[in-house]
């Protein structure tokens, strides 16, 4: 992996000019004879921030207002220069700090696309090549040749986003812009961003929408008062941030059972966090409520570690209440070994309003059929408040393997059958022996004598048999 963005001991001081007054005037400067080009004082916005973002990584930056997030992003984009330290960004950068920042209201959308594209570093020819895609993505239709001032704010933002993402940047910096626009557009943005991530574009988000950080980012950075407090797994960083916002005091991890490891100290550079590193459970939270035991069991209550596709399974959580709560949410997440979230839900998402949690109990998450493709999976279980502050978050508390004789791909296996009608036929099983797909091989093995080579679809016969 190569590094896309490196911050080395970045400091940024904002200078304050003139005695408290925002504007200096030449007249006053000359009259008072203190035409000074030295700032009177400065405010530190970033203090010794260092990190490295790998190519293709999605990196979230969170923190309170005024914590220095946007300053950091502006330094990455080159709009601001660090006071000291270095910020090295490799490749073409597109910064979505304000959508449509360069639009001129009096000229048409078409002309604005060209100007905005040139501002973002494209040549005219490159814009020509992308023009249709931009227009299509923005969905501005017949307004293309109207002055931008006639656009609705939604169209304006869509056009700005469309141009910026079609620059084909190596690094895309996004400041809070996903929160604008309607639901449909937000979804489109998120989809586009995921596509870019898939293509290997390095993404940096600055946002207050913590869900986005949890869902889209590989790592997150929490900045407070200009200092990097914590870098690492987004769910953990977001949680630590929420703990601090909620309580002020630093959260102490629960120590319910001996095998739980400590939450690493904040600001500690995380060990290289590999997506495939599923070996150890991570656990954090404030500990008022803890999940003492989490288990994956079958219908008879026996522990499971390996299961076949379509097996009925239940996740059991033994809940220990140390401090009674009225605001609580139980959540489950199932992840593939490559980090893909297969499914995630919680009681709040499903509309269960918390009432009372004042004594120990057991939560059972029952799945009549877990239709997964063969592979390794892990389960996260958590109990947290409705705004996401964790009481006990157990990442990778369970691991299990799904086995299958069919080598289909993906993560989810919908219940399915193949049906063929009309002139579609498959070769007789005899002919298939040399290079047999797994389901057919199964069929052959189960039937000692191969079926008569009649030209009927093989799958049908098998279905009838079942």
């Amino acid at each position, binding site marked *: 992996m190569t590094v896309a963005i490196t911050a080395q001991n970045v400091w940024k001081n904002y*200078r304050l000019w003139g005695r408290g007054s925002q504007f200096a005037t*030449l*007249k006053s400067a000359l009259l008072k004879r203190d035409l000074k080009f030295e700032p009177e004082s400065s405010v530190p916005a970033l203090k010794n921030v260092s990190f490295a973002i790998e190519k293709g990584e999605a990196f979230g930056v969170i923190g309170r207002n005024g914590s220095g997030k946007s300053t950091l992003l*502006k330094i990455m984009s080159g709009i*601001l220069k660090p006071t000291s330290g270095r910020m090295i960004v490799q490749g073409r950068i597109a910064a979505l700090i304000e959508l449509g*920042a360069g639009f*001129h209201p009096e*000229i048409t959308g078409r002309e604005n696309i060209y100007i905005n594209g040139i*501002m973002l570093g494209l040549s005219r020819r490159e814009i020509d090549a992308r023009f249709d895609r931009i227009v299509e993505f923005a969905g501005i239709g017949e307004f293309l040749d109207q002055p931008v001032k006639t656009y609705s704010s939604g169209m304006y933002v869509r056009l700005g986003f469309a141009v910026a993402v079609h620059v084909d940047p190596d690094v895309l910096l996004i400041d809070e812009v996903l929160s604008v626009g309607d639901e449909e557009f937000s979804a489109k943005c998120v989809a586009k961003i995921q596509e870019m991530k898939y293509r290997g574009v390095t993404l940096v988000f600055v946002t207050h929408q913590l869900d986005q950080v949890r869902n889209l980012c590989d790592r997150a950075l929490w900045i407070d008062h200009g200092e990097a407090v914590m870098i690492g797994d987004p769910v953990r960083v977001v949680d630590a941030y929420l703990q601090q916002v909620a309580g002020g005091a630093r959260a102490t991890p629960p120590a319910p059972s001996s095998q739980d490891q400590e939450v690493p100290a904040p600001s500690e550079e995380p060990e290289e966090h590999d997506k495939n590193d599923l070996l150890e459970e991570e656990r954090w939270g404030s500990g008022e409520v803890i999940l003492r035991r989490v288990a994956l069991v079958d219908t008879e209550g026996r522990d499971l570690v390996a299961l076949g596709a379509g097996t009925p399974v239940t996740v059991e959580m033994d809940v220990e209440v140390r401090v009674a709560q009225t605001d609580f949410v139980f959540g489950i997440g199932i992840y593939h070994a490559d980090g893909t979230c297969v499914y995630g839900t919680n009681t709040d998402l499903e509309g269960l309003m918390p009432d009372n949690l004042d004594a120990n109990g057991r939560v059972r998450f029952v799945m009549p059929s877990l239709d997964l493709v063969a592979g390794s999976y892990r389960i996260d279980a958590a109990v947290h408040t409705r705004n996401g502050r964790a009481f006990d978050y157990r990442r990778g508390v369970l691991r299990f393997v799904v086995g299958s004789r069919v080598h289909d791909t993906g993560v989810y296996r919908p219940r399915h059958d193949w049906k063929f009608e009309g002139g579609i036929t498959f070769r007789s099983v005899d002919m298939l022996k040399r290079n047999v797909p797994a389901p057919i091989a199964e069929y052959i093995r189960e039937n000692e004598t191969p079926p008569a080579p009649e030209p009927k679809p093989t799958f049908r016969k098998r279905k009838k048999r079942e």
Partner: protein
Amino acid sequence: MSDLTTLYRHRQLIAALTARDLKARYRGSILGYFWSLANPLLLLGVYTFVFTFIFNRFDIQAYPLFLFTGILPWTFFSAAVLESTTSISSNAGLIKKVMFPAESLPMVVVLSHLVHFALAIPVMLAALVAFTLAGKASVHATILLVPVLMILQTMFVAGLAMVVSSASILFRDLRDIIANVLQLGFFLTPIIYPIEAITSRPLRALFRLNPMTPFVIAYQDVVYYGRLPNLSDTILMIGYAVASLLIGFFVFDRLRDTLAEAI
């Protein structure tokens, strides 16, 4: 000159922004092009009236033509300099939100006013032809030097625009100061009167400290009088143009990093 290479690298951007500026200005007005002429023509009308009918002091043939040759370069100069004071602050969004070469903004202002200037030249030529047909003026080959003068003047204006555009971020009253200085400058430049009207030689030399004086005299020389600009004016023009560019780049470089913060 890293700034020159920056400007060159962003030539497409500057061209596109200039086109945008011009389009936006003229969009929706049928008389668009003529509006850009309105101000010089108005000045022309007023001064012609005053100096032909009220103070009939200067014995100049085809006085409107003489006036026109001086007013056009002056309008280019004063409008570009005045407008560049706000070129950066009125595009604060670009400086703060987009990674944007700030030096293109004063350049765009200068170039779009250069275009106005160039568009007014046919009108000046028409006037020249009209007065020639009336037997009060004549067309000379020296008029071909106008583009050279325009290039030199653009260099001079561009350097000045860089200084005032960046400095006016720090000094918010710079625009008012410049507006007043320009108004004064109009009368301290031999536009409505020939430089010869100043009889005292030392005073005339002092007038040439006004950088616009040699430029205006040179335009009058090549268009109205049909003669080459004299050597001292030529040297002064080149000197002012180069010095202005150097100072412009230097000041802009010093202030560049503070722009995004101070704006």
